[in-house]
């Protein structure tokens, strides 16, 4: 299977798994810790996928999706991170930071998609008022749009990563990115530790 085809399948799978984060199921199949090794396995780099995934997961744990807040998207981060390495050709360390940024950049897009769905309310009400009670197709349409957006974003991220990898001076960054990448587990563990410590030792 060519790398391009693998990237295409991976992006489509990421789009599908991404639905789990908000729209369908919410079994946590969209979390980077699962998406990373899965896409890594599909693209022939399961270990790097697992490392990227779990480190992204540890950093993304800091964000909680309460009250309609759109946090940075972990699925987009993991998909772009893995594809930036496997299809784009970036070193895992730079691919990780690439994915981290991608997850943050996807949030405004997700926000716009959610805002655009507000327009469905009037359409659905009109349909129900006309005696047609089929709501499922609107939900299916909303999920399809979200799926396509995330898949397209992951593919665009992989393409951009390939472009960055082709620039000659990119390799000069690797000593620095490798070192920063080696510190990320500690940053993530710190977040995990203090999250629960704060809950157990609440002030007052």
């Amino acid at each position, binding site marked *: 299977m060519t790398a391009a085809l693998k990237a295409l399948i991976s992006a489509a799978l990421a789009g599908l798994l991404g639905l789990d984060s908000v*729209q*369908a*199921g*919410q*079994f*946590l*199949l969209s*979390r980077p*810790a*699962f998406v990373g*090794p899965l896409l890594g*396995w599909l693209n022939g780099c*399961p*270990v790097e*996928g*697992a490392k990227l995934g*779990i*480190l992204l*997961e*540890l*950093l993304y*744990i*800091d964000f*909680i*999706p309460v*009250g*309609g807040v759109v946090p940075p998207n972990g699925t987009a981060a993991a998909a772009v991170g893995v594809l930036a390495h496997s299809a784009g050709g970036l070193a*895992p360390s730079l691919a990780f*930071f690439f994915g981290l940024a991608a997850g*943050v950049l996807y949030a405004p897009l997700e926000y716009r998609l*959610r805002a655009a769905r*507000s327009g*469905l*309310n009037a359409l*659905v009400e009109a349909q129900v*008022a006309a005696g047609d*009670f089929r*709501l499922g197709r*609107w*939900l299916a349409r909303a999920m399809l749009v979200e799926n396509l957006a995330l898949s397209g974003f992951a593919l665009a991220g992989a393409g951009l990563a390939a472009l960055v990898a082709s620039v000659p001076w990119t390799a000069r960054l*690797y*000593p*620095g*990115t*490798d*070192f*920063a*990448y*080696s*510190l990320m*587990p*500690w*940053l993530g*563990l*710190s977040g*995990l*530790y*203090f999250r*629960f410590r704060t*809950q157990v030792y609440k002030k007052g």
Partner: protein
Amino acid sequence: MLLSMFARSFLLQAGWNYERFQNLGFAFSLQPALEKAYPDKEARKAALLRHLEIFNTQPYMASFVLGNVASMEEKAAAEGGGEEALKRLPGVKQALASSFASIGDRIFWGRLKPMTTQICLLVWAACGFYGWLFTGMDAAPSAGVLLAGPLAGIAVYSVFSVYLRWTGLKAGYECGGCANCALDAANWPRLIRLLSAAGFAMSLAIVLLAFGLLAGFNCGACRPSDLALKLGLPLAVLALHRVMRALGRSVFFTAGLVLAVSVLVFSLLKMEPFKLYL
């Protein structure tokens, strides 16, 4: 009917929007109950339009509200329109949505979700995979091991969330009609405290394990001064994260700061790369 509502409740947020939040998914999930309660098409239309109004709660806890509302609609239909019951319905729905959102956010987003990551790390550590800690370490665990970690966390989380969705729907349906319906279905404060304690214990175990592994892999392989530096650097990262949090900066800011300094020192100023391990 309850089974159909249960299955549909997994799509509660499929049409999430900023105008009315989960209204489309809620109405879609409630449809089986409305079909049963209102055989007449006009009455069913009015009921469906009622539930296309604003609704928002924690998605796993929505089933408590869903069961309650289904029961209230059935009772209203049995009373031939039940104006009194329908008048109370929006208030009860809103009150329950707010209460269960608060409980659900604490249980699922605040505790169980990060615990799935902890379970993943512990499973990987038990299987001898330490790539999550030593990014430069060459390891070749099977894909099965790599997927077992996250899947173990997902399994624990999903068993709990699916169980709560189902029991919530049943409890809400059985006691439907009041604004405190099923709020006593579990000892929520105790559950939250237990999860916090378990999460903290696992966090502590993982951090101690990480430092233990770091010391263990480097002990004897480098000079004591190097070992001190290798143990001190992660401690500095932990302290940096703590300080940044206190300053209101997100973890991404700290990650960006670490990246910028690292690139400056090791890529641009070309200092000899320093490896934390081995």
